[in-house]
């Protein structure tokens, strides 16, 4: 069979080099986004960011002090030349609160991009679909590039895409749970239907989880707790970066289907040869 299929072999580096992640018209080489919460020190965060190669880095507006970026333990580590600082609205309970936070960030000089996180309950930090939809509409009208954190709900994803969000960011599992892609079946549908990039966000606890999401065709992943909580955040960031690349490459190279049983080549129609 392989003798007949004369597809010229692609150099894997070419596959990846010609494959930017495009969000709202902006191209990124890295498909690995990193969150900045929960790290034990500014130094640990700096090392992890370096090792991750991430270009899109989220910061919680509740947490950072944008009036004093030079002394803030998170803001002081970020380099606006290398990182797109993506402010998130975590902790917001209503669309109004999220919109106020986004406006504040823009007024303080950040780019008008916002990761919309409407997490009204503090235990599992699950996203509120109703308020997220409302906030997305308001922010898009005000000219923000909106990246909403959502349940793995394919219809909600389409509704947000129609409103004009730049991505959808369905969760793999609750934030910080390290449980992996538990919402696999719904994320598969979201990826299949989406016209905007799909970023699997939350719950990815191991590089293999990130690779799994990327193999499924996710456009990017976002990871925070698994890095911040690792004994060596830098080492873990590098491991995730490799897994994201591996998963993407596998997706581009075309994965074979998964089968329950071994299969002979053509047991039913072999007689026709």
């Amino acid at each position, binding site marked *: 069979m392989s003798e007949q299929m004369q597809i010229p072999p692609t150099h894997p580096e070419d596959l990846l080099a010609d494959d930017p992640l495009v969000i709202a018209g902006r191209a990124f080489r890295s498909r690995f986004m990193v969150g900045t919460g929960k790290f034990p020190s500014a130094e640990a965060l700096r090392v992890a960011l370096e090792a991750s190669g991430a270009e899109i880095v989220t910061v919680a*507006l509740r*947490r950072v002090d944008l*009036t*004093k970026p030079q002394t803030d333990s998170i803001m002081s580590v970020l380099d606006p030349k290398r990182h797109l600082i993506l402010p998130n609205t975590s*902790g917001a309970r209503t669309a109004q609160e999220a*919109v*106020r936070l986004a406006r504040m960030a823009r007024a303080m000089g950040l780019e008008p991009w916002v990761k919309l996180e409407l997490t009204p309950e503090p235990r599992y930090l699950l996203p509120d679909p109703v308020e997220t939809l409302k906030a997305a509409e308001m922010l898009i009208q005000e000219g923000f590039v909106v990246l909403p954190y959502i349940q793995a709900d394919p219809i909600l994803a389409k509704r947000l895409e129609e409103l004009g969000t730049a991505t959808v960011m369905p969760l793999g599992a609750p934030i*910080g749970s390290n449980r992996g892609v538990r919402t696999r079946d719904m994320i598969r549908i979201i990826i299949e239907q989406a016209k905007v990039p799909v970023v699997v966000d939350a719950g990815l606890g191991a590089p293999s989880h990130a690779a799994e999401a990327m193999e499924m065709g996710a456009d990017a992943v976002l990871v925070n707790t698994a890095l911040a*909580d690792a004994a060596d955040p830098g080492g873990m960031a590098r491991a995730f970066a490799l897994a994201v690349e591996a998963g993407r490459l596998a997706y581009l190279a075309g994965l074979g289907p998964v089968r329950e049983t071994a299969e002979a080549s053509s047991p039913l129609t072999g007689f026709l040869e």
Partner: protein
Amino acid sequence: MEAARVQHKDSGFAAVLDLWPKERVKRLIAAAGPEDVVRALSREQLTVQDLAALLSPQAVPHLEEMARLAHRLTRRHFGRIIGLYVPLYLSNVCTSDCTYCFYAVHSGSRGARRTLTLEEIRAECQALARYGFQNVLLLTGDAPKTTPLDYLAQAVAIAREYFASVSIEVYALEEEDYRRLVDLGLEGVTLYMETYDRETYAQVHLKGKKRDFDYRLGAMERAGRAGARRLSIGALLGLFDWRVDGFWTALHARYLQKECWQSAVAVSFPRLRQAPPRHPIRFPVGDRDLVQLMLALRLFLPEAGFNLSTRERAAFRDRLIPLGVTMMSAGSSTRPGGYALGEETLAQFEIEDRRTPEEVAEAIRRAGYDPVWKDFDRAFCEASDGGAGKVISKQ
């Protein structure tokens, strides 16, 4: 259940408490065997039976394992960070008579009684903001005539000019009163039940509105319904059997998590270390007891914040950091005017950890955690911009 609700019009949790009289809780704790502790440690979500086992003497040989689990759970949910806050005492005038408290009207305390003016509150806020604090807890005694709601509202409004997050620890309020403060930008409410044992409660609270057990018990439900984002509860350790009060505290936290699902519930572990002469401490709580209590509650409530005040010694506080603590106070004074005014007014209790805020932050860093000064933003609240989206100040 319905009948119970009717009987306790001031608190939904009172009906839960009725189901767990102290005899039943004590029996459950006493019945726990070593195998119950092992089972509790292997479960992802603990039952109340598991909680009782972990609070029982049978769990003592397992403290190290409990500590490891508590450490993991806390890190996973909160990360390797410790929030910093500072108390600001607005007044030490008190019309209640709680036998264990130096502020009590008949405590025999001779120190000066003082209620800060609005200008003095501002001066205190300025002094604390200079240390870098972004999270302040405003406290008063139990004296609604001296520190009425209007006064509290003005204090919250002033504090909000200086701090990202403002909380109160004052007498129990009505729901509409909490709502008024929340609308002004109040983030959190702290109110300790002191003890959940009705009998002990009646013995140590001799005077004032605070004698009304159910009204106080229902305060946090009212605060949650009013939109307070953080609800901090606790029993004053030393008033009653800590295992039983700890069990009830955990049930209260669980109840509030369901009832006020948009509020983050936190638990404090204030330990009564000294009391006025008329109040011998009948149930002293040792270091090992306090650690067991914290660990048992962490395993039962993985997502609850744990506050640790400067009532505890510096060295002991540092040891507790990896065991589930999420918030610590620092540089505290328990005297009104204790920061900017430098006055020797009557203190509520003696501070054990006298380190400066920066020294505490350094100790947190040494323990491998990032000290977090800011974890809220004025922009969350309507009051900051009247809804118009204007940024109030760039400083």
